[in-house]
């Protein structure tokens, strides 16, 4: 399966129960080509405002990377060729097309792009999974982190007179998403409460059995009855 290790229907990171997951379900029937103009606009904005990203990726011009937001029904192909960079949205990608893949929930990927979370910490805790060529992923992470991206500021700066209304809308959307996330978390907690109760009881029982086993092993080592 190497080099890029993109596997159809495989999600190395479990998508969190979130508004993005619900949005992803709603987007399933949408053809990726309809979303392409959004990604073209994002790339244009990044090239204009953060040219250093491609500069830092110059040694990896021929190494496309697949970015897999695990809660959305599509993947993004980043081709960092400085002469003709591309950000393409696809339903899926042939692993031979890419050097590496980054899997993670959309919220985590966006926070990483804005330098709000540490990529290594995400990796240590498995909220982010990388496969394939580690070098190009590290280069991309450093290039993006070093650019100091602030999505709302960056997009606002491109909108001229529409910047102020955009900021208001973006701020309202972030607040709304936060409230929906809280509601979803409440719902999730309620739904899994019985299972959590059972699990806690089982954990307590396992701890007790482990303690008993330890005692028996000690007794066996001293020559007693095991």
């Amino acid at each position, binding site marked *: 399966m190497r080099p890029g290790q993109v596997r159809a229907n495989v999600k190395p990171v479990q998508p969190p129960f979130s508004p993005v997951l619900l949005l992803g379900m709603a987007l399933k029937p949408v053809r990726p080509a309809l979303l392409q103009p959004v990604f073209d606009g994002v790339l244009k904005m990044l090239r204009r405002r953060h040219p250093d990203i491609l500069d830092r990726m110059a040694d990896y011009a021929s190494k496309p990377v697949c970015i897999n937001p695990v809660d959305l029904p599509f993947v993004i192909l980043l081709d960092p060729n400085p002469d003709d960079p591309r950000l393409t949205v696809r339903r899926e990608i042939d692993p031979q097309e890419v050097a590496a893949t980054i899997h993670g929930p959309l919220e985590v990927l966006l926070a990483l792009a804005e330098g709000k979370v540490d990529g290594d*910490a995400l990796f240590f805790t498995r909220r982010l999974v990388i496969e394939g060529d580690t070098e190009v992923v590290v*280069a991309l992470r*450093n290039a993006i982190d070093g650019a100091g991206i602030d999505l709302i500021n960056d997009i606002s700066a491109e909108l001229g007179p529409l910047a102020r209304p955009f900021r208001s809308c973006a701020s309202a959307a972030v607040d709304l998403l936060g409230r929906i996330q809280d509601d979803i978390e409440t719902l999730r907690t309620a739904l899994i409460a019985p299972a959590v109760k059972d699990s806690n009881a089982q954990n307590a029982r396992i701890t007790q059995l482990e303690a008993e086993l330890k005692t028996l092993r000690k007794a066996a080592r001293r020559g007693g009855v095991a």
Partner: protein
Amino acid sequence: MTTAQPAPAPLTRPELVCPAGTPAALKSAIDAGADCVYVGFRDETNARNFPGLNFNRRELAEGIEYAHGKGAKVLVAVNTFPRAGQPEIWHRAVADCDELKADAVILADIGLIDHAARHHPNLRLHLSVQAAASNPDAIRFYADRYGIKRVVLPRVLTVQEIAEVNARIAPIETEVFVFGGLCVMAEGRCALSSYATGQSPNINGACSPASDVRYTETNEGITSELGGFTINKFAHTEPAGYPTLCKGRFIANDKASYLFEEPTSLNTLAILPDLIRAGVTAFKIEGRQRGRAYVAAVVGAFRQGVDAVLAGKSLPDIDLDRITEGGKQTTGAYEKAWR
């Protein structure tokens, strides 16, 4: 009749020396309270020569301007060992630091130190941890012979030993690591990564270079490899770590264990008062290869910690577990709790 105890000597404010792998991280570090940042050029002249990381000359000039505008300093690490017969890029790096008015260069190689002392007499020289100078005789030699002003101490000394070194080398300054990844080997002399990858951390500037690292997801968890060697296997419930050989989990006597060192990070927040009383001039945070979120979190925590100690307040309780390798922390050799 009781004798009045002499008042304790006032504590000297240590500099907080913080990592910056990119211009954005430099700004994050300074905005979070760094007194100094240390950086490297985008080549093998520094020991964090990682893909996509570090500064070109324009970025360094802008970084120095930003730092000086905020009253902070910029130190440049030129702390790898020049290849025999090819010292040009190392000489160029030192000359550019002088020209761009960096506040100091951090050097390890004795030949490069000699070159810098002779050709750039006004450039302040610090001795890198890569030089592994850990006793007063070695430190004084660098100071007497080349005018080294500060030594970054290897992470092998207890706090008491650091205090004794400081007493014997004054006025040479010492800088000690207070947070971040740990090297269990003699720094600047480790060949483990070279053995596995053919690239030397001490010359090429990257321990466990990303080009030789591979992570593979399996049903059981994640397997990490370096240069084709399996270094570790983490279950899904375990925190993952970097595939450095010194922190690998190997099978010996039928038991898999960390033979050299567990994936653990240094954290000295709890012993900051002792380190300040030991007369250390500067506290260094490791992690130029980490993102600006790490930089902001750790610098902010240590700024609060140092300020609290100097103000006679209790230390802040700040949880940095989430950003540490292995999710575990240690005070390392400073306390040598294993003895």
